[in-house]
Each structure stands twice: as structure tokens, then as C-alpha cells.
């Protein structure tokens, strides 16, 4: 009896428990900070307390004399071997990009920037000595906040002459994908409806649970870096490109990585400094950040001011949309940096048939922590803006928010559909997702209850929020990325090989950090190759094991990396077929392959793939001209993005006395094409939802006027707990819209929950109190903001003049952070 006969019929679609979990639930883990090497030294960073200052002197004598200190080094102790932190996506040819040294010798540009590194025999002694490094600064004026930066009065980098980094524009009239947005707005001002709003995407911190950590071992021929990163392959490339060490001498390993959410998609100063110190001292080194350091110096996300103009006819049919973004890059243009808001450019039109669209994005530099990708990266911001606007339009027209969407969305018969932003959506069914979500949510009943509470004037009011989102994910077609001046491609690589005893090793260039690739990829290979799920071993996250890859971000691993796997498996089957035909003394054309076994049609003769693997290993009997292996590599470059979508419905209770908000129910119906593992998909959705909900309700990174991060610990940067969240109602359409641009029919799901949920929650909060004269509450919707919004017009809750120094007055429709 062969193993294949024990294999269940189909792995794809099965809620397999994860292979990863046995280790993780028993503490048998290999986080970077767990790694200890003989002779390893420990680093502590000396960071600037000032947001902007010239470094006038650094006295390291006392630190060097501290017990067990090996070296104290600052920027001037290094030359070009220190390398540089790169920007891989200059969004315009004339983008202003300040030089970004991992450890500048002359001037710091944000509070938390590293000015010196202490190397000692223990981490504690390194920290002790770091306190003794005496740095003298000549403080410079700091620019904090987008609106301050735009004034160009105080400059984040004086040598650039301006804070404005780049202006990126898309205009459907000019691109030929639609008509002129300005004309539509002019027309609507005369004969229709114009909604004008300013929305603030507050600054967020990815706040992965595992703080970043890096170990560098220079003691073998290839220098090895272990890092808590999402992007081992990109790190290897960037280290080689900037430090002068050939790629062939660099090995980067991402061992167990504790979450990333975009926050570990970076080439960090800490990694570069650890690399340089290890090279200099020829000893292994380790640096693990504290949570405070992580919040202060690991990149932040979001941080935009969105100025929006939506034009519609009197029935609420949208005729044009104009978007102007001002986006805060922070102190440097980080690896993706200004590209993040540009990723949103194609998504403001969302699921709708807008005839005219104009998008402008102005990026600015400030003296704050640099910003970059955070879960969704550009698309949550776009989705928030349009889904909030559609609710405002519904209120203006006086119809249900779902009705206004239906009047504007692409109907399922209209796919494939080329949008006003120029993307071709292959499949989707917004009607089906909405119908299923409404039914599961109990939409009509909740609307009735809302009406009753309003009628009674209840202290606690009920609001219902809608978000009908789509996103472009599966980053990305390499040619498209090239056309956007992105510095890399979007392909993914896979290898499949059979071991002599018939197990299957799968190598992927994706780099999981909690997603469950080992399980889902095993399911794909088990089905495609016809082998037991348990016999598939997925290898990843080490550039010597998986030499080619573009890593994990942008909901790409399954839809791009999974497709590469399929192609590699198919090549293995093709190779095996030649050997099978030889051994079975049959014509290859007479062989069928199913359940891991070649059979000669019309006979009971056959060979299992495992037998062929063993035969290949032995090499005793094989056909002339056959390469003696069943291994195959494949690289897949997608032809299009893919476009998951869904309808999210949220019910929020608002205590009108205190402004406190409480989630009552949350239903989402996501259409993500073929589902490989429903258990993993549900987990991705739940986690995504809470990150999006957290933006709506709790999280905000706040810098004070001097550029110091006020929300610098988990005491002040408020992550929700189990006690603050609810259980979610997650459903899917009965007949998913299968993706037509990959074999598996899958669409990305890693970011969907985050992209969709934020506007659903804020729409619900606003809906609960709209009858009290509220049409917006700035995020996060703190009780205080909700309370002030309710009482904005009755004098009960005056806006305090200077009680909250991080807020300024004088905004379009809300209070605004200093970050604005």
C-alpha cells in the first residue's frame, strides 16, 4: 500500500490545522533574540533626544572605560562601509531624497536617530555604557506636522531647500482612462451635489509583537545576518549594493519572525550598524531593541491629510472625484516611502464606475520618525476616504448608504471592467457579497432598532457603518512596477524537489512571519503533486536555502508565490513522466498522472512519484538524455494584480453622555476567490479587522511640537486587548469570484480586513450621532472627540484653547493633530 492511498481527496479548501503550531505553542522557537553564538558581543544604541540638531561632539571615553566594553563607535568612525539606508521607489524623477546614513556623523533629523553604538560583552553592560556616552548637540528648529512642513518656513533638511519631496499626479482626462474631474465638479456645483471633506489619516505604529532584533556573524566565508525581517532577500540585495560586500558573501536569514504588518519591510539603520560593527570587530554581534526604541525608531505608517471633492448628480450618481493628499514621509524617504500613498492612487475609485478622477499626492519631509508600509499601505487610506464620502453622499441624497453604493458600483455582469484609474478588475460580485453580509448581519432589524432608539432619545445611540471595499493586491506585475519607477520586480520564485525516500521539499522566496505559508503551501503541493500533506516540507526565509525571492508583503505570497509553486510542481511531474515511461516500458503519451501515481492507461501498471524519486536517487536505470533529478525551479511574474472585495457592516453603540463607543456587531462577507485554508483565511480576516478597527478607535502616534514621540510606550500607544474587542461574524459568498489571472483562482486576503474595517467603524460612529448634527469624527474616535462632536453646536463642550498642545485649531471640518 502506498502512502498516496491514505491521502484525502482534496487539500485545497480544507481547514488543516497549522504545521507551524507544534513548535510555537510549546516554546520551541527560534526568534532572532534567542540566538547566541560563541564570542558574541552585544550592541546598545545611543539615540538623539532631539528631533533636529547638529552633533557638535561625542565623548566616548567614559563609556569605553565602562566594564566589559569592547568598542564605542560613532558615524565618523566609519567610512563608506557603513552603507546607506535606501529608498527603492523614487516616485518622481525630481524627488528630493535626503541622504540617509544609518548613523549620521553630523546632523540628526528625528528624535531616536542613532548617533553612536556601544559594543560590550553583555547587553546590560552595553546599555550601562551607552548612558555614559556624552553627546553635545546644537539644537536646530524642528518641523513637525504636514501643514507646518508645507509652509517651508522650518526645514527638515536645510540643504534641500524645501520640505516638499515629490508631487505625483494621475489625471484620468490626461491618461485617457476617463474624463476631466474639474469639469465634473464645476457641473455638479451648478446642477448636482458636491461633497468636500478633509480627512486625517493619523500616524500609526505597526507594533508587531516581536521587537526587531539582528544578529550578524562574520566568522564564516559568507557573513550571516539573522534578522526579524519580512524581507531577507531584499536585505541581502541592499547590503551588497550599499556596503560593498558581494552578494555571494552574504547570507540573510529570517528565522521565526513575530509579526511584521509592513513594519519589518525595511532596510534599517540598526541592521546596517550591526553589519558594520561585526565586520569591523570580526566578532558576532547582536542587537535587540526595546519596545520603547521600537515605537520611536521603527518606521511608522499612514499619516496623510486628504483633501477630497466628490461630484455627483442629484440622484447620487457620482460624476467625478478629486483627491489631493499631503503625506508625511517623516525624516527620510524610507525603502518604499513615498510609494505607499501612490499605491492608494488606484483605489480611491474603489468598486465604482466613476467617469472622472484626478489624484495628486504631495509628499513632505518632517523631523519625525520615517514612515513606510503598514498593513494595507495606501489602500486603507484610499478606502477610508471613498467609503466615508459615499456615506456622506447618501446622507446628502437622503438614501440608505447601501443604496447609494449600488447606484454607483460595477455590476457583476460588467466584469472584466477597466476602471477610471486604469486597472482591469477581472472578477467580482458586489451584489452577492452585500446581500449575504446584510442577511448575516441582520441589517434591517438593526436599522429598526436604530430608529427606535433615536425616537426614544436613548442615552446610548446605535449606528450602522458600511464599507464595500476592493483592493489591488498580490504585488505585483514587474512591468507595472517598472512603469511606476519602483526599484524591483514583483515576481516570485519556487523550487520543488523530491528527496530519495520520497518526501517533498518546497522552497519558496516568500518569507512568512505568522501567515501560515508552511501549511497552506503544503496543501497546494499535496493536491497538485498528489502526495500526503504531511510529506511536504516548506523551506523559506534563508537566502542560502531559498536563494531567489522577493519576500512577503502586499498580500502577495499566496497569489504570486503560490502560483510559482504550481509551476514548479508541474515541471517536476513533466520530468517524472519521462522516467515513469522508461521504467514502465510505456509510451509517455499513454500515462495518466493522478494521486501521485503514473499509470499506464488501460493496465494496472504504475509508478508512484516516490518510487520515481528513489529510482532517480539510485540512478541505476534511466532513459538516455534524462537529467538525473526530479527537481524543478519556477519563477512567476503575475500579469495583473488581483482584486478581492467584500461588504463589511458594523454596528456601534455610542454613549452620548461620555462619548464612549462600543462595538455591538461586525459582519464581513469577503470574496477572495478560491480559499486554500478557511481556518487561516478567517485568522487573517480577524487580525486585519482589529488592526483597522484600532485605527478607527484607539491608535495614534503623536509627536509634540519639539518632535518628541509622546505615545512612546504601550502605556500611551493604545493597542486593543481581548476585553476591547468582540467576536466577528466572518462569511464568504456562496460562489466566489474566481481570480482569472492565476491557476489557483486565489485572491489576497492578508490586508483585506484592515483595509475594509476602518471606514465601516467610523461610518457607524458617525451614523449613530448624525441626527445630533455630526458629520465627522476624526480618528481615532476617542470618547472625547465623539463627545465634543456631539456638543459642538450646543456650547456644552467647548474646544479647549490650549489644553491639548498637540492639537491645532482652524481645520476644515474637525480638530487636527500636530501631525497635520
Amino acid at each position, binding site marked *: 500500500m502506498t502512502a498516496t492511498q491514505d491521502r484525502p481527496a482534496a487539500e485545497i479548501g480544507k481547514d488543516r490545522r497549522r504545521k507551524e503550531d507544534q513548535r510555537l505553542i510549546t516554546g520551541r522557537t527560534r526568534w532572532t533574540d534567542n540566538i547566541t553564538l560563541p564570542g558574541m558581543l552585544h550592541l546598545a544604541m545611543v539615540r538623539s533626544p532631539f528631533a533636529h540638531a547638529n552633533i557638535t561632539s561625542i565623548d566616548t571615553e567614559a563609556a569605553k572605560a565602562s566594564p566589559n566594553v569592547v568598542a564605542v563607535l560613532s558615524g565618523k568612525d566609519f567610512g563608506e562601509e557603513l552603507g546607506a539606508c535606501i529608498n527603492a521607489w523614487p516616485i518622481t524623477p525630481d524627488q528630493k531624497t535626503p541622504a540617509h546614513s544609518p548613523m549620521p556623523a553630523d546632523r540628526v533629523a528625528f528624535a531616536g536617530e542613532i548617533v553612536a553604538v556601544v559594543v560590550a560583552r553583555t547587553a546590560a553592560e552595553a546599555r550601562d555604557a551607552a548612558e555614559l556616552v556624552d553627546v553635545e548637540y546644537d539644537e536646530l528648529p524642528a518641523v513637525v506636522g504636514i501643514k507646518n512642513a508645507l509652509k517651508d518656513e522650518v526645514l527638515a533638511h536645510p540643504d534641500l531647500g524645501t520640505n516638499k519631496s515629490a508631487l505625483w499626479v494621475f489625471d484620468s482626462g490626461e491618461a485617457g482612462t476617463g474624463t476631466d474631474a474639474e469639469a465634473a465638479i464645476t457641473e455638479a456645483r451648478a446642477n448636482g451635489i458636491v461633497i468636500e471633506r478633509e480627512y486625517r489619516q493619523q500616524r500609526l505604529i505597526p507594533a508587531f509583537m516581536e521587537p526587531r532584533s539582528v544578529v550578524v556573524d562574520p566568522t564564516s566565508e559568507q557573513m550571516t545576518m539573522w534578522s526579524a525581517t519580512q524581507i531577507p532577500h531584499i536585505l541581502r540585495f541592499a547590503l551588497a549594493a550599499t556596503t560593498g560586500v558581494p552578494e555571494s558573501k552574504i547570507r540573510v536569514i529570517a528565522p521565526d519572525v513575530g509579526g511584521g504588518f509592513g513594519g519589518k519591510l525595511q532596510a534599517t539603520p540598526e541592521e546596517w550598524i550591526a553589519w558594520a560593527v561585526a565586520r569591523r570587530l570580526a566578532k558576532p554581534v547582536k542587537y535587540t531593541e526595546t519596545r520603547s526604541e521600537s515605537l520611536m525608531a521603527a518606521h511608522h505608517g499612514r499619516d496623510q491629510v486628504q483633501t477630497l471633492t466628490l461630484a455627483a448628480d442629484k440622484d447620487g450618481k457620482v460624476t467625478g472625484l478629486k483627491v489631493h493628499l499631503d503625506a508625511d514621509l517623516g525624516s527620510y524617504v524610507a525603502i518604499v516611502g513615498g510609494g505607499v500613498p501612490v499605491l492608494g492612487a488606484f483605489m480611491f475609485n474603489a468598486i465604482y464606475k466613476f467617469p472622472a478622477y484626478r489624484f495628486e499626492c504631495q509628499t513632505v519631509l518632517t523631523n519625525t520618525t520615517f514612515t513606510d508600509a503598514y498593513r494595507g499601505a495606501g489602500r486603507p487610506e484610499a478606502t477610508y476616504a471613498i467609503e466615508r464620502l459615499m456615506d456622506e453622499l447618501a446622507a446628502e441624497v437622503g438614501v440608505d448608504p447601501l443604496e447609494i453604493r449600488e447606484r454607483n458600483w460595477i455590476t457583476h455582469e460588467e466584469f472584466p471592467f477597466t476602471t477610471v484609474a486604469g486597472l482591469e478588475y477581472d472578477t467580482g460580485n458586489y451584489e452577492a457579497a452585500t446581500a449575504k453580509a446584510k442577511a448575516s448581519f441582520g441589517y434591517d432589524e438593526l436599522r429598526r432598532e436604530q430608529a427606535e432608539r433615536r425616537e426614544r432619545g436613548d442615552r446610548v445611540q446605535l449606528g450602522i457603518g458600511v464599507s464595500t471595499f476592493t483592493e489591488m493586491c498580490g504585488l505585483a506585475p514587474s512591468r507595472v512596477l517598472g512603469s511606476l519607477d519602483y526599484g524591483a520586480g514583483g515576481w516570485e520564485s519556487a523550487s520543488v524537489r523530491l528527496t530519495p525516500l520520497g518526501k517533498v521539499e518546497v522552497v519558496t522566496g516568500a518569507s512568512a512571519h505568522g501567515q501560515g505559508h508552511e501549511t497552506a503551501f503544503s496543501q497546494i503541493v499535496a493536491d497538485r503533486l498528489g502526495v500526503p500533506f504531511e510529506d511536504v516540507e516548506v523551506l523559506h526565509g534563508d537566502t542560502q536555502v531559498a536563494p531567489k525571492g522577493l519576500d512577503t508583503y502586499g498580500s502577495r505570497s499566496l497569489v504570486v508565490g503560490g502560483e510559482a509553486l504550481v509551476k514548479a510542481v508541474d515541471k517536476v511531474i513533466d520530468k517524472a513522466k519521462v522516467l515513469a515511461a522508461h521504467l514502465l516500458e510505456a509510451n509517455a503519451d499513454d500515462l495518466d498522472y493522478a494521486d501521485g501515481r503514473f499509470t499506464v492507461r488501460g493496465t494496472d501498471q504504475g509508478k508512484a512519484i516516490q518510487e520515481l524519486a528513489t529510482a532517480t536517487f539510485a540512478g541505476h536505470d534511466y532513459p538516455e538524455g534524462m537529467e538525473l533529478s526530479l527537481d524543478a525551479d519556477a519563477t512567476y511574474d503575475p500579469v495583473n494584480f488581483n482584486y478581492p472585495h467584500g461588504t463589511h457592516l458594523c454596528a456601534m453603540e455610542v454613549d452620548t453622555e*461620555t462619548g464612549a463607543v462600543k462595538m455591538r456587531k461586525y459582519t464581513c462577507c469577503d470574496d477572495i476567490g478560491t480559499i486554500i485554508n478557511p481556518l487561516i483565511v478567517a485568522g487573517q480576516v480577524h487580525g486585519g479587522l482589529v488592526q483597522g478597527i484600532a485605527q478607527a*478607535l484607539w491608535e495614534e502616534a503623536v509627536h509634540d511640537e519639539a518632535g518628541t514621540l509622546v505615545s512612546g510606550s504601550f502605556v500611551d500607544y493604545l493597542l486593543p486587548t481581548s*476585553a476591547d474587542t468582540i467576536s466577528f461574524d466572518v462569511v464568504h459568498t456562496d460562489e466566489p469570484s474566481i481570480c482569472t489571472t492565476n491557476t489557483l483562482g486565489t485572491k489576497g486576503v492578508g490586508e483585506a480586513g484592515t483595509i475594509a474595517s476602518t471606514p465601516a467603524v467610523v461610518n457607524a460612529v458617525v451614523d449613530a450621532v448624525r441626527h445630533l448634527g455630526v458629520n465627522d469624527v476624526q480618528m481615532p474616535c476617542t*470618547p472625547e472627540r465623539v463627545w465634543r462632536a456631539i456638543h459642538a453646536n450646543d456650547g456644552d*463642550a467647548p474646544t*479647549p484653547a490650549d489644553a491639548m498642545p498637540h492639537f491645532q485649531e482652524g481645520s476644515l471640518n474637525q480638530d487636527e493633530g500636530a501631525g497635520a
Partner: protein
Amino acid sequence: MIPVKFDYLAPTSVEEALSALGEHGDEAKILAGGQSLLPVLRMRLNAPEVVIDLGGISSLRGIRDDGDAIVIGAMTTHHDVRDHELVKEHVLLISKAAAEVADSQIRHRGTFGGALAHADPAGDLGAPALALGAQFVIAGAGGTRTVEADDFFVDLFETAIGDDEILTEVRIPKHTGWGAHYEKFVRVAHQWPIVAVAATVKGSIDEAKIGLTNMGSTPLRARATEAALAGASATEDGVRAAAEQAAEGTNPPSDLNGAADYRQHLARVLTGRAVLKAAGV
């Protein structure tokens, strides 16, 4: 991150602890449950040369009935205070507030006396201790003295405990049969209270005692509201009207979680709610 180096002393009696404190004075820091102290040391916001751990002094732990008062040893954990039958029967407000301190793990380590001596105005135990008229027993070289709650809380993180003294126990007058409620307002569960109100009432309502958390540099009494409630009947309208005076004399902070005027508004609303719940309305 790791604290700066310090010497560690683990006395096994109050006398030993006092003598250690006398010897090291300003350079020493008392470690009770450590749940507030250790984060401070780890962030290197404080760098004592000596840490004196009271964990080995068994006489500081425990809860006893002392006639007209319940006496809680300073080193009794929040978890034990919350669940103790004597506390629930005679000073229910303390049990309710202890249940709201931080989280389960912190309540297993954090101590009643340590939290009160730390005197964080956002701490959950100051307001109920103040409202119940607790007496603080403080040991020093010259013997013990007892300080009334009104005199105990001096300022932000400052109490009547001298540098060479140790809080040994807290006597809380019995309020047997009084209803109680601790109304805590937070944005996320693991947060310090933005505002909280500790209310305990006799009958409905013969007498009310109300403490406010995080409405000034120390816990405060809402005395005007207490006066308005005494002898009033516990109707929703009556209680809410009395609660309108709850913010009188308060001076709350303004920070990311709320401006002072918003906190004063919250104090009024939450006082009404706390009293109504305490009265069982």
C-alpha cells in the same frame, strides 16, 4: 531593557527593613510587589543604589478583623484583597476597586500597600481608601504612627510616609452593608483610568462617600455631591443632580486621553452612575 545596577536587601522583619532604610536613606528604594517600580527601573527613570525587598516579611501580609475596622497588611496582593470575605463583607468598595487594578498577572504580584504608597493619582485604590476614611499605619525608627487618609495623600507620587518609614498596614473602617461601585473609564482595558469614581452608599441613601481617581494630583473626595446625597432618595434624577457638583474643586490633567474640562464632565457623569449602581438602582 535592564535596570541600572543596585544592591539587593531582603529583610525578614520590619525592624530589619527600617534599619536598612535608615542606613541607605535616599539611595534606597522599597520594593513591595514591584509592579510599578520595575517598569520605572527598567526604563531607567529611577536609579536607586539599594533595593529593599519587603517580600520576605510575612507579617506584612494578610487581612484581619479588628473590631470596627478591617486591617489589610501592606504586602497583601490585589488578588487576595479582591477575593477576601472580610473585605467583601465590610469594605466592599475596596474589593470592587482591587478587581479593577491593571490585569490578572499584575494583581497576582502588586500589593495593596505598595500601590497606595506609590500614590499615582491614576491608581485605583487611592480614591476608595480616601472615601472610606482609611487609616495608614506607618512604621519608623521611633515606632508606629497612624495617618488619616485626608492627610496621607500629599501630592503627585507623594505621601505622608517619610524617607525612613514603611507603610505596614491600612485600617479601613467597616462599612458593613454599604453598597459599593467602582466606575472606571478607560479607552482600552489595560490603560490607567482616565477618570474613575469610587462610590459607597448606606441605604438608599442615608449617607454617601465618593472618591475620585485622576481628577487632581491626589485622590479627591466629591464632598459637595456627598452632602447633596445625604438623606436624599436614590432616584435617577436626584442622584444625577447631586452628581453635577462632583467636579467641584478638582484639577484634572490634560493629556492624550482627555482635556481637563472633559475629565470634569466625565467625573460628573460617572459619579452619578457609580452612586446609582452602589445604591442598587
